[in-house]
């Protein structure tokens, strides 16, 4: 089980995956909006999306879990 976390504080702009999706290593799963920039967050490992905790429009702090992936 791998937790994909926010690399920096910001707003969740787009959630690109839903539970059950297969993701590959390096694939973008969420795009944050912070400091007026698009911040793509990618998966460190491939696997199946188990849980999506990020909500579009919500604030996340650095280190908050966005998506949980099962290997």
């Amino acid at each position: 089980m791998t937790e994909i976390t926010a690399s920096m504080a910001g707003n969740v702009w787009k959630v690109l995956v839903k539970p059950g999706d297969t993701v590959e290593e390096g694939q973008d799963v969420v795009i944050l909006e912070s400091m007026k920039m698009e911040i793509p967050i990618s998966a460190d490992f491939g696997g199946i999306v188990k849980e999506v905790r990020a909500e579009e429009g919500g604030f996340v702090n650095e280190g908050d879990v966005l998506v949980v992936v099962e290997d």
Partner: protein
Amino acid sequence: MTFDKVLSERIERVKQGGAPKYHEKNAEQGKLFVRDRLRLLFDDDFEVEDALFANYTAGDLPADGVVTCLGKVDGRIVAVMANDSTVKAGSWGSRTVEKILRIQETAEKLNVPMIYLVDSAGARITDQIQMFPGRRGAGRIFYNQVKFSGRMPQVCVLFGPSAAGGAYIPAFCDIVIMVDKNASMYLGSPRMAEMVIGEKVSLEEMGGARMHCQISGVGDVLAKNEQEAIAAARQYLTYFPQNYSEKPPVKEALAPKEFEKSLAEIIPANQNAPFNMHDLINRLIDENSWFEIKKLFAQELITGIGRIDGQPVGIIANQPKVKGGVLFVDSADKAAKFINLCDAFNIPLLFLMDVPGFMIGTKVERAGIIRHGAKLISAMSEASVPKISVVVRKAYGAGLYAMAGPAFEPDACLALPTASIAVMGPEAAVNAVYANKIAELPEEERAAFIEAKREEYREDIDIYKLASEMIIDGIVDPNDLRNELSKRFEVYSSKYAPFTDRKHPVYPV
């Protein structure tokens, strides 16, 4: 036996290091014998070694666990100290320390780089009075390192542990190359951490190579194995002069790697969309000339040395692909040390800007982003080597300052046609100035008003307007950028501009 036979036999025995079982144990861990490491480091078998017979009479401590010698890397002399982990786990006795001090003093007298090949369990407690506290105790090694810093290059390759006091050898080097899985640095071992503070943690997690290269930033280069680590040390040295009084060696000029897409095609016009800054760097530098420092640490900023037409150039570049290229505490720290490194050894600097500013918010304020940013701005201001800054896309707020903007005496501040220089971007600026006005407007009129004001703002910060005001020194076609930089670095090569008279600054750290 004749005396010459006795001598050669004794030399052979000492050169074999510790007992076979320790050689086997090292081999199992993928570790090479110290003398094989030296063979990989040096050009050929040319080697001058001192105190091979140190502690010979002890019988079981060949060379007292350290090889100290001079050899050639890329045709130039370097001084080396290399721990032998087959001898009491590479621990330090009194003669070990004396040998290290002497090779350091030799490096100082010859004004040549000092290389530390570290693989040591730390002090031999049994020898502590002789090797720990005194004038020529281990503390002196670190004192010497501090004294040599910026005078001759100091390189550390870490093959095994570097524990407690020993962990300061890497800390005072210009660069630390660590072998994944085997290398570690820590002040207190996991066992000690459990005893003293009650923490249960693995060595890899607390002081492993990957952790240090990714999170603490104490490590600079993570190598897959010992061969790769030593090759990295050899490559690193090719960019550096023997000491601060010389210029870095210029190699044969090579064309950059060829790409399908030109620079103009890869830079997105939308300031908020990410792109990979490495794609730009690769189009500016000679093919296969890139040596990245702290590649895994604070990746929102790229630091590395490449060659432009054979001339080494230190590159500091924002990476919009990671954290939007925003400057953080760690990226400021990373850039400050890299700038110090290049400036110390006369390597010109190139700043590639695409930066929305310094990060804001509680987390970074508590981590002291103001003083870390000040540290970067101070290092960048003081650097007296040729400096060129290029505004690739946005340069907002203090980001412009930190990346050698016009006020910080770059020899030139150039812009690409995609550049945008401002206190803040159009979105934030319109919001800051017209927030009340926007709130008063009827809902259906807001979007049009905001877009009109943003457009007005964009026109106000138009890059041709800034060139007209002579804020920037030129606008360059991205496809001509390499050529422009090459000419400019050649022109600026005779630059001599000491910063100011004083003992030293009060560093804002």
